[in-house]
């Protein structure tokens, strides 16, 4: 008789106040299309919390905004590998991957990534 598989512990990441401030700052810089400076703000946050997938997603969004879809996807993959136990962050990471793939015309792979973002595996 198979044993019941215990549910994995869910740990959704949150941003520390310092990271939150830097992400807010980056979003303002992003509005004025100042991509290198916005990325620099997120990188500061990443030095404080390198293991936080939300920050990798934020950095991916900056890359996406400046049209660097390869790096956007890679940041998404990095975030996805770090958020196995965090469904919400994981879904956000896969959405970023899906969007980046779509922007490069890789529609089949984008569709697969979207399904993962929706939790269909």
């Amino acid at each position, binding site marked *: 008789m198979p044993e019941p598989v215990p549910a994995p512990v869910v740990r959704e990441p949150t941003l520390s*106040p310092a990271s939150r*401030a830097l992400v807010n700052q980056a979003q303002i810089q992003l509005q004025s299309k100042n991509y290198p400076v916005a990325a*620099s703000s997120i990188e500061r946050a990443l*030095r404080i919390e*390198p293991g936080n997938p939300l920050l990798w997603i934020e950095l991916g969004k900056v890359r996406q905004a400046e049209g660097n879809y390869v790096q956007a996807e890679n*940041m998404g993959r990095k975030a996805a590998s770090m958020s*196995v136990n965090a469904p919400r962050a994981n879904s956000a990471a896969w959405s970023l991957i899906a969007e980046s793939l779509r922007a490069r015309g890789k529609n089949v792979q984008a569709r697969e990534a979207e399904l993962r973002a929706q939790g269909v595996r």
Partner: protein
Amino acid sequence: MRALKRYRKQIFAGVALAFGIALIGFTVWVFTLDRKITSQFEGRRWTLPAQVYAQPTELYVGQAFSAETLEEELKRLGYQRVEKPQQPGSYSRRGSRVDLINRRFQFWDALQEPQLLTISTSGNAIADMRNGRNEEVPIFRLDPLLIGSIFPIHGEDRVVVTPEEVSTLLPAALKVVEDRKFDTHWGVNPSAILRAAFVNLRAGQIEQGGSTLTQQLVKSYFLDNRRTLSRKIEEAIMAMLLEVHFSKQDLMNAYINEIYLGQDGRRAIHGFGLASQFYFGKPLAELQLHEVALLVAIVRGPSYYDPRRHPKRARERRDLVLKLMGEHGVIDPAMAQKAAKRPLGIVSSGTQAGGGYYPAFLDLVRRTLRRDYREEDLTEAGLRIFSTLDPTVQTQAEEALTLELNRLDKTRKQKSKTPLEGVVVVTAPQNGEVIAMVGGRQANFAGFNRALDAKRSIGSLVKPVIYLAAIESGQYHAASVIEDGPVSVKLSNGQVWEPKNISEQYYGPVPLVRALAQSMNLATVNLGLSVGLPKVTREFVALGLEREPPQLPSVLLGSLDVSPLEVAQLYNAFANGGFSTPLRAVRAVVDAEGEPLKSFALEVTPVASPDAVYQVNRMMVEVMEHGSGRSARAVIPPDIVVAGKSGTSSDYRDSWFAGFSGQHLAVVWIGHDDNTPTGLTGSSGSLAVWSRLMANLGTTSWSAPLPESLEETWIEFPTGLAARPDCGEEPIAIAVPKGTTLPMQPACETNVFGEFGERAREWWRGITRQ
């Protein structure tokens, strides 16, 4: 007589002609001098070496800073402790509370204006941070430490200051001590020259120079120390010409930025801006009276009055400067007396701001930038470079290397004529920033940069790459059993290759995890040959090695010449969970006006299956727990999980250790420059440096979430048979693909797999506190 009379006209004409020609010649000469001096003065007045900054310290609630650490940090930046901070660059401390006013600083991405910060610490962390309006400040960057500059071949280094950055004390002191008639003379001071000539005549040697500041400036511009009469005349004329063209204020400012004030190896310290950093570790604007007086004292003879080598002489002259300042009404005589009681206040030249100078790291910065900039741009154009160096980590890396090398030189059995050499490279694995680099035992000696240029055989450091290739192939997992037995490979040249284990024993069937942890050569060769050499050599390139290794079986045992920095690049991919990120020493470059020129953005690229990397990383944790890295456990706190691998090249020529925690990746190499044997293995040599460094860094655990496709299970470390935490020989928890079935240790037969998988996971979580 008659003849004379007769030719009087002609003689007169001849003399007049000669005189006329001489006059024209003189005028032309003066004109040339004029062109020379004005173009020198007006054109690009100084070549400005690029300034290199360390990474700035970030302050935020939760940052692991006690009040002591914070104070040390501020002292390192040359902040002055006061009762109540009023000026930028000062702070006060009351118990666990620190108040500071930061310096104005132009970062590559923002301008940081000075503001008052009140920081409360609680134990070893910042608990609260507020500005002058009592508002919470979530994050704040301190101005970064200036760690050096990229100066040209002739070695002239300087930091140029504007008149606004100079306290009025400095020009006043210079005038009183060097040239009291500066404000009124026209370049030369005849009475001073006469006086000096008289003094020198009486003394029979040169004791006093009659040079004005303007003459000193001319002399310094043309780098000529000959004291011939014609030289003196030329200098005097040029000084007068300068006075014609430029205002006194311009000349004073030029003097302050030009004059030679000390020597730091090959680096010549020019100008008061750099001298202030070099001797006091802080900007010129923040110097106090006794410090200004010392710099003015040094002008007369930077080597004779070197405050580091001849503190007594320097102090006597400083006090004389103070006395003169008092006598001539620059300052109140009482102030002069008070200042004369202060110590010299010099920072040590080793690791501190001014003199501190990290040749190996700066060399990496220079090489990075040489791809984008011409040498002249770096040494002349006044670029500002924001580097990734963390001075605290750098200091600890230098200390760990020096201490352990001294110990090893004393204790190792195999004595050699030359002392051991070593290298340490530290990176932040998640973003690939190189945060420390020690290029040799004498860290501040600029010479052969072993961290970049010593390409040495890396021995067993290759093994994790082979195991990764094996697991990625899908044929193996961490508990797969391989044979550690005799190997014999016929090479293409007809020879037969028969490698051995270091112990010269055979271990028989062993699980992958043990073969890696105990660095078994024969098991690894068998594994590599079964996976196929092309897969293995390609894996090196995927992980970041620039050139693919030759497809030779000996590569499986690490006969592969790689520099410590390249090893760091390779291992960074493991520490970063299978993502490669190019190692960086520079974050951004801005031009002299503060405009960003270039930023080196963080890039990540997936290069290996995260599941396979996770398994190998867990195996590298076992290296530290049960294998060749075990001795580190006596040094590193028991709750800190680290992963790593040792490496030893043939005949014990190279001792390597590479490994990582959550925050730091460090690679250590020890060997001899002439490649003679050291008698050290990776574990008996470099591991000691590595563990001491990791322990001192106060680093965090390596941890990563278990990938979905894997599960935890217990096996016996020696045999690889399935076991239980309370049953079997040396049971360990490892990660294997879901659904893997392992033969059970017969003594533990009652095992129910799922339950123990879960207990393994709990055990692992207990260790990593996930």
